[in-house]
């Protein structure tokens, strides 16, 4: 039986479209697509590819182990160095870069009394609690249960 020419043309057209689709797909889909799922696997690498901003407590521990050890003995044990001392990456890369001196604001920020704060936190009203004196006159920041000499 001879196939009618319009059918042959339709078959050829269909084959051409399907081939065109697979060719285009082959070129357009990135190599890492489907590595982990229905997305580009390389996206994970790209998202990872940026430098951290905060150095992290473990980095501080490599040089200042004595301070970290002292800190870990009292109430402030869970604190990260950078929580109070600020971003330290520049200091890690060049130890001559000094971190800013700390002020009263650093203490008050967490310890100012508020009805929304949980009861376990030591809170003071800065307007009534030894106004005019420095916090560090009575409290050692690295070991709050100690009184400075």
């Amino acid at each position, binding site marked *: 039986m001879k196939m009618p020419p319009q059918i042959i043309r339709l078959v050829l057209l269909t084959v051409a479209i399907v081939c065109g689709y697979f*060719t285009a797909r*082959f*070129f357009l889909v990135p*190599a890492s697509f489907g590595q*982990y*799922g*229905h*997305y*580009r696997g390389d*996206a*994970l*690498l*790209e*998202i*990872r*590819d*940026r*430098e*951290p*901003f*905060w150095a*992290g*407590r*473990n980095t501080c521990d490599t040089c200042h182990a004595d301070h970290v050890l002292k800190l870990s003995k009292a109430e402030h044990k*869970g*604190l*990260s160095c*950078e*929580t109070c001392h600020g*971003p330290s990456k520049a200091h890690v890369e060049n130890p001559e870069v000094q971190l800013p001196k700390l002020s009263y604001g650093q203490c008050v*920020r*967490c310890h*100012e009394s*508020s*009805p*929304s*704060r*949980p009861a*376990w*936190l030591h809170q003071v009203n800065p307007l009534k609690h030894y106004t005019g004196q420095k916090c560090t006159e009575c409290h050692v920041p690295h070991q709050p249960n100690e009184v400075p000499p």
Partner: protein
Amino acid sequence: MNETMTRRGALKGLAGIVGGLLAAPAAQTCKAAVQNGLATSSAPKGYDPTQHKWLMALDVNRCIGCGMCVEACKAENNVPDDHFRTWIERYVITKPAPGSGESRGETFVDSPNGGIGGFKPGLIPKEDVLKSFFVPKLCNQCESSPCSQVCPVGATFESPDGVVLVDKNYCIGCGFCIQACPYGCRFFNPVTHTADKCTMCYHRITRGLRPACVEICPSQARIFGDLMNSKPEDPIQRFISGNTTQGLKAHLGTKPRVRYAGLDDEVR
């Protein structure tokens, strides 16, 4: 010049096209391999996402509302002003009207500038407050995430290590995911013109560091760890085993990988 088409000429042309088609992908593969080799990715190699499963837990009773985590996140991830990858909400529940027989009055929630700089005293007088607390919020890293399901271009996905991420090269900024998120955790980044969200500091956790908010939180309200590589005495395992935890809006079936302990009914 001979314009007539011969059988030989046509076959030669066809062979050329087929040969070109076959050679092009090979060339592309070579190019990709070369590019991979030359790429100066600062990301340390050897991190296998299939070998980790991250989890964040939040202890509402530990949050003191200082707002340091919000600032830490902004600095770490260059989050534009007025947008937040994480923020803190203050809940104030008033006392019920006397004799009403209710257990509580009205609930007020605020989050001035996401909690940056801490919270000023509220407008409700202290004697009218039944209870008040802070709740840190961030992307819930759903295992069955509505945002990935609606993305029309496959730019948002759940990574094998349990983090929902955005492929910024693929995102077309249509904003479907921003509307789909039941927790309001996504925003349109006006700088990159793509959807943006918490990545659990993916660039930090894959280097063995903690996410910025967890690192900076002064009261351990945020606990973070790898469930596939942790021992029972690690903070995350201790926290999960020692507390009743829940995800937000459990009825939506999103299966959040961010767990809360000490959560009140009013928090959604």
